[in-house]
């Protein structure tokens, strides 16, 4: 870790170089764009929800290394999860990155832990959250499309 840049840790660069689940889900149930108009970041998250289980989830578009790495990590975290767990993930990452709201302590952060570095860089917080927020919106949309009554996930 000697010459490692505080923001651009190997783990983030590795995700940036080898994106996971990049592209568009065919026949997606929902598709949401997250963007940062002033910097031109533009990610689209598409997903399917099958019964109570999420997946596949993909992201497409362009963002900075943090934003793209975060998008890949997001797809890995939420795929095959229940809607409740997926939402817990979103809240937990949001809490870790912004310091606001509650995290779900039971989730194993793993690689996602590396996103914590943006916390004191307001300009990068948006990048790191972009895909998560788009996923959150897409999930809500997909549920509405399925018109299934969903249990509240708020405490």
């Amino acid at each position, binding site marked *: 870790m000697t010459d490692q*840049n505080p*923001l*651009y840790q190997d783990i983030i*660069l590795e995700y*940036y*170089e080898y994106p996971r689940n990049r592209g568009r889900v065919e026949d997606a149930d929902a598709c949401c764009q997250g963007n940062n*108009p*002033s*910097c*031109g*970041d*533009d990610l689209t998250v598409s997903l399917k929800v099958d019964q109570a289980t999420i997946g596949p989830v993909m992201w497409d578009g*362009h*963002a*900075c*290394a*943090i*934003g*793209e790495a975060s998008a890949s990590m997001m797809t890995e975290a939420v795929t095959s999860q229940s809607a409740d767990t997926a939402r817990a993930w979103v809240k937990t990452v949001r809490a870790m990155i912004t310091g606001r709201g509650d995290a779900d302590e039971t989730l194993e952060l793993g690689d996602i832990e590396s996103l914590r570095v943006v916390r004191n860089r307001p300009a*990068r917080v948006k*990048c790191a959250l972009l895909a998560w927020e788009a996923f959150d919106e897409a999930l809500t949309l997909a549920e509405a499309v399925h018109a299934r009554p969903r249990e509240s996930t708020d405490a």
Partner: protein
Amino acid sequence: MIITDKTAPVTEQHSLDVEAIRRDFPILATQVNGHALVYLDSAATSQKPRQMIDALVAYYSGQNANIHRAAHTLASRATELYETTRQKLARFIGAPSPDEVIFTRNSTESLNLVAGSWGTANVHAGDEIIVTQVEHHSNLVPWQVLAQATGASIRVAAIDAHGLVDLDAYRSLLSPRTKVVAITHMSNVLGTIAPVAEMSRLAHEAGAIVVVDGAQSAPHLPLDVLSLECDFFALSAHKMLGPTGVGALWGRRALLEAMPPFLTGGSMIGHVDWDRSTWAPIPQKFEAGTPNIADVIAFGASIDYLEALGMEAVRHHEQEITAYAIATLRERHPAITIYGTDDTSVRGGVVTFNIRNVHPHDISEILDERGIAIRAGQHCAHPLHKILGTGATARASFYLYNLNREVDALSEGLARVETVFRRVIDRPAR
């Protein structure tokens, strides 16, 4: 307060004494992230000389009063100081009369004023408004709003491969339907300079007026609105050594006099009854409420500073540093793309670039760790970025206080970017 001499370092034979100039800008002696600040973001906002800062302090400490409405000494002195800046600015841009210079908040408000007042009174359904492909949102969105409100439409004049307005394409857009031609004089993305005088002549032949967004040209080019042959010219003080919160609009007297007011209220009226009012003569008609008195006065010190240096010398310096930057970056960074023409006779000190497969935010982040301030993003020019075929760009922009050694620092910073992102850079372009 430190006692300071008031004038800028005098320029000899067209070459700026940049080291002396730098001593006038306190922020340039500060550190950012443990490194000496390398400020390459003057196209966003310029830094400020102590002469301007001192003028603000002097005003608030000994001259502050509301203007135009009182007989007391402070108020009439403040009024005089305020009007003196109007005279200075008129002279600086070659306006025939100070009455034709209106103070606003920024270029954006100046352009809104033209679109909202002249536009609403003169643009009708079926009319056309021509803009160029390099427009900043501030010289595009107000025209969209006007077009939508009136039923007019927007036509876009294309740029060529060098980022310069394609005059043939422009000519072919002009027609008797053309009511307004809105031109960015110098692009804040490509640095390219539009041939405004020629475009104005063609526009006038077609019966259109010409509105020039001079946000980037006023700080960097010797200016004369009459030889530009335009009808309106907008600028921002904060980009030309002045304070934030001051912009200006120059317009031809006959147009300004015929226009309805834009904002209304105190100071811009003639007579006021309960249900109707009359207006003051220009420029007051367009300055509703208490203006930004202190900053307008302090802006006078910025204009003095620029005039003492000489805009020819400023322009010359920027051409040199821009040429050096383009050559240096091209030579040392093979993965770089630099946008716009290399010909510094038609471009200003803005160098916008990308490094293959690296997002501009990541470039600016790594530079920032070394105290180097550049911009990353779309620079308020979304549609242009679509044309450039990129989501975002990195932009280094220069001003009269920048030195070649800061270009070198930029280059060293980019070498660090290349080290961090080596593996993605070496892959084919995404």
